[in-house]
């Protein structure tokens, strides 16, 4: 994160580029019924426009105006409508997250009044927790969601509010990363989770009343409740009438010194049109319980399997992570003889969470599929990436980097830098694709 006002000098330029880019995608209609026909591959039958611009840049103007900008965060523009109406709003700089499911809009970025989900007389709200110790809280609402020519109708979404009723202690206690409720705290106007699951919680929320998930609010008093699969916040992609089995993210390569921004595409569907085929991409089945796969680094396995001789770590591809986050300095040095120190924690070059090697280090790690029991499956595929000095790289005003990394004990988290120069497929659970049902990732 850059805490600089110099960002402002070119934020306007970037925003202009973003607008131009959005125009190039065929534009977004203010009407949910406003399909723009003829995607890049439309021949014969009328194909829906299934592709929109994906931009890695300095983020929303409101974030820049607050003096902040984050590296390696991918954004799209989403149109949100009151269900069944043409009362709509375009929301730019919605962060694309393959590590979560569902649309979550910060209240200050939402101008529409969307219908609140209720159970009897009670409002339904949700708590959401992220790996960085942050949390979000707010009502579940319903919206039509339009992206390019795709429309998902009456989708349960979440509105992230600072003071919705009374935030339950069971949601906020111990979450020292703080609450995500506005553009500066989220770093985006909204988060759109397009990961491998259909719902954000799944069967874990359909019985009992687990704290930290769904809540029913009697007045200001919100208590944990169960939530049916259909009422849960949904990955909007699987609710599209077509192109609903997953997403394809394509981003261009960038120089090792970074680039001011990167512009690619987010395409819906896998193998449903001429622009979203798997081609030679290798399919990596993920654990249907966790969405994780297995990573093997210099003989040590990092997967979900909870048993002898295995790592009990977790490895995954996540566009919502802004680095290659893997292991930690001590483990890399002591166990593997790889010298990658953390960035300074104080002083002018202080940078929490990232690696700052003296010279760029190359890392090679094998990844394998993973079954429901957490055991590795299939043949290995090697991922090679570089880790450069993040503190040095971040000193210029660039926002797309392919070579920043940081700590993540017992795990390999392949974040946005992994996507640069690649086409990455994320297939949704239970949805048919030419290479079988999701969940899987492919690249």
């Amino acid at each position, binding site marked *: *994160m850059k*805490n600089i006002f110099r960002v402002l000098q070119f934020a306007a330029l970037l925003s202009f580029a973003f607008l131009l880019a959005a125009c190039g995608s065929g534009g977004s209609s203010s009407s949910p019924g406003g399909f723009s026909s003829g995607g890049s591959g439309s021949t014969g039958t009328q194909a829906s426009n299934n592709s929109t611009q994906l931009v890695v840049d300095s983020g929303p103007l409101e974030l820049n105006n607050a003096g902040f900008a*984050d590296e*390696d*965060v991918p954004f799209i523009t989403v149109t949100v409508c009151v269900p069944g109406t043409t009362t709509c709003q375009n929301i730019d700089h919605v962060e694309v997250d393959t*590590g979560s*499911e569902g649309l979550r809009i910060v209240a200050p970025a939402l101008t529409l009044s969307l219908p609140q989900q209720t159970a009897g007389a009670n409002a339904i709200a949700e708590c*959401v*927790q*992220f*790996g*960085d*110790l942050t949390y979000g809280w707010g009502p579940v609402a319903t919206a039509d969601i339009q992206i390019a020519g795709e429309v998902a109708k009456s989708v349960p979404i979440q509105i992230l509010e600072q003071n919705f009723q009374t935030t339950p202690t069971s949601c906020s*206690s*111990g979450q*020292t*990363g703080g609450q995500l409720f506005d553009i*500066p*705290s989220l*770093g985006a106007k909204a988060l759109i*989770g397009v*990961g491998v699951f259909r719902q*954000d*919680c*799944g069967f*874990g*929320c359909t019985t*009992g009343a*687990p*704290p*930290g*998930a769904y809540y029913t609010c009697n007045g200001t008093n919100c208590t944990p409740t169960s939530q049916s699969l259909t009422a849960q916040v949904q990955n909007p992609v699987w609710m599209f009438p077509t192109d609903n089995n997953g997403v394809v993210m394509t981003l261009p390569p960038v120089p090792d010194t970074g680039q001011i921004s990167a512009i690619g595409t987010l395409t819906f569907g896998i193998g449903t049109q001429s622009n979203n085929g798997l081609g030679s991409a290798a399919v990596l089945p993920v654990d249907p*319980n*966790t*969405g994780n796969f297995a990573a093997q680094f210099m003989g040590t396995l990092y997967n979900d399997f909870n048993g002898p001789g295995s790592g*009990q*770590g*977790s490895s*995954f591809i996540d566009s*919502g*992570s*802004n*680095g290659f*986050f893997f292991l*930690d300095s*001590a*483990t890399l040095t002591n*166990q593997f003889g790889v010298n990658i120190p*953390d960035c300074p*924690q104080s002083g002018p070059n202080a940078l*929490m*969470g990232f690696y700052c090697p003296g010279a760029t280090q190359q890392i090679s790690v094998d990844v394998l599929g993973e079954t429901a029991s957490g055991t590795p499956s299939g043949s290995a595929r090697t991922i090679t990436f570089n880790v450069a000095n993040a503190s040095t790289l971040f000193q210029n005003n660039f926002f797309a980097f392919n070579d920043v990394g*940081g*700590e*993540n*004990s*017992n*795990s390999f*988290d392949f*974040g946005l830098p992994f996507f640069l120069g690649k086409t990455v497929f994320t297939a949704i659970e239970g949805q048919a694709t030419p290479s079988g049902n999701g969940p899987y990732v492919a690249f």
Partner: protein
Amino acid sequence: MRVLSPRSFLLCLIASAFSYSAFAALGGDVTSIQADQAHMRAQRRVIQNAAYTVHEMKSESTTVVREFVSPDGKVFGISWRGPTRPDLQQMLGNYYSEFAAARPTRRMHGPVTIRTQNLVIQSGGHMRALTGRAYVPAMVPAEVRLEDIK
């Protein structure tokens, strides 16, 4: 914090539904795990290793929390994995204020590692599969490898 008298490991083998008032887990006595178990409304099993004991609890949300106990009956580390994080204020006990004071100073878009004078906390993962651990380096028995706290 009140202090419970030490109990035998045998007692700990019995999954207890008894509710105790809030006792610190990390850094605390092995009996403090029962308070965490009650807080989580969790089922518990105990795994005996050569150098330490693991008390594994599974909450209603299917999150699995493990507490690592040294031979002298002290909780030197905890880990979690699942759809929700355990209440770290409960799990970290007396170490919580030290942890809270060292909260991330920047907005993160990825996992977090926090090192304080007495504590290391690492948190990461993604929706449905949050992971993390916390340990007190000075309390970790010499025979225990840090990478085994998971």
